């Protein structure tokens, strides 16, 4: 499929295809939505099975769910402080959704919904609105003091305020572009080297030997992509925590 017509077709893997036949076509239900539902289902199953037994010595599922729970709880309390406990469900849901999206996307034939800017920008916009509303509810009008540091000379306000506002508005953009670019770059690289394997493999006697090179690169890349999947979910969660810290404390 990748090497049709002897060209490298690295981008068709991101195309949305309606699933579920005519019903899916009518409501625009694509394989991206299907994978989101799959990820939510897997997270739910992991947590429900994990807490079912409540054993003193945890089994596999309980150990995994407790590990995820404690990891995010440490992250939230470490970054936001004790007041951050009530935002734990929000950060946990975001982290698990992004992590499972990244990991499911690495399986063959699967689709990576975090490789679409629409999805990551939607998540980042949610973070942006939640943090802004939290700050407005907690601090009221004092929130706007965030855009002008105390002690700065007043005549600098026409310069400082627009720069701070643009810097604040750039948060959801950088948050979403980082995740989206990492996932797209990884999957394009995998596809390009996989295409090299097929193209070189067809080069007569020397082909299979030469094809070993891109194949070994791909093996390394898959390991690297698993690292990136965890790392980007972690970065997304920790940046959400940092923004929540700013919203709660308004330093």
């Amino acid at each position: 499929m990748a090497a049709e017509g002897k060209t490298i077709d690295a981008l068709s893997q991101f195309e949305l295809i309606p699933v579920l036949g005519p019903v899916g076509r009518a409501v625009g239900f694509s394989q991206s939505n299907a994978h989101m539902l799959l990820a939510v289902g897997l997270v739910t199953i992991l947590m429900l099975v994990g807490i079912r037994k409540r054993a003193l010595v945890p089994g596999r599922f309980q150990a995994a769910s407790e590990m995820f729970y404690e990891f995010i709880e440490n992250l939230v309390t470490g970054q936001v402080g004790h007041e951050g406990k009530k935002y734990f469900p929000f950060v946990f849901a975001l982290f698990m959704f992004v992590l499972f999206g990244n990991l499911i996307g690495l399986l063959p034939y699967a689709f990576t919904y975090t490789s679409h800017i629409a999805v990551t920008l939607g998540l980042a916009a949610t973070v942006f609105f939640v943090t802004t509303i939290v700050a407005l509810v907690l601090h009221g009008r004092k929130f706007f003091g965030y855009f002008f540091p105390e002690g700065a000379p007043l005549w600098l306000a026409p310069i400082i305020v627009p720069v701070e506002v643009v810097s604040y508005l750039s948060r959801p953009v950088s948050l979403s572009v980082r995740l989206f670019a990492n996932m797209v770059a990884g999957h394009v690289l995998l596809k390009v080297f996989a295409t090299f394997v097929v193209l070189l493999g067809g080069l007569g006697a020397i082909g299979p030997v030469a094809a070993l090179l891109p194949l070994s690169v791909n093996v390394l890349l898959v390991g690297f992509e698993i690292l990136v999947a965890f790392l980007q979910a972690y970065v997304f969660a920790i940046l959400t925590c940092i923004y929540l810290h700013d919203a709660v404390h308004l330093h």
Partner: protein
Amino acid sequence: MEHRDGFDDRLRQARAREGLDPKPPQGAGGLPTGPWGIGLRAGVEVVSALVVGAALGFGLDRWLGTFPWLFLVFFVIGGAAGVLNIYRLFNPPAR
């Protein structure tokens, strides 16, 4: 469950004695601090601030009919905001 025979305390002491616990990460808010991590983050921060600034200026111009002046002003402001983001990346505010 926490205080059963002080097991957690003894485990923590044993782990510290054997040096099994990784040191807490030192960096900007616990974010990855490798050269690639910092470099990619810095690039994304600058470009996103620039894009937001330019888009804001362009939108205001469309609304007020003053093309290209606000676009130019906000392009510069976006660049300044990008530099500010980089400054915050390397000097995280004290908390």
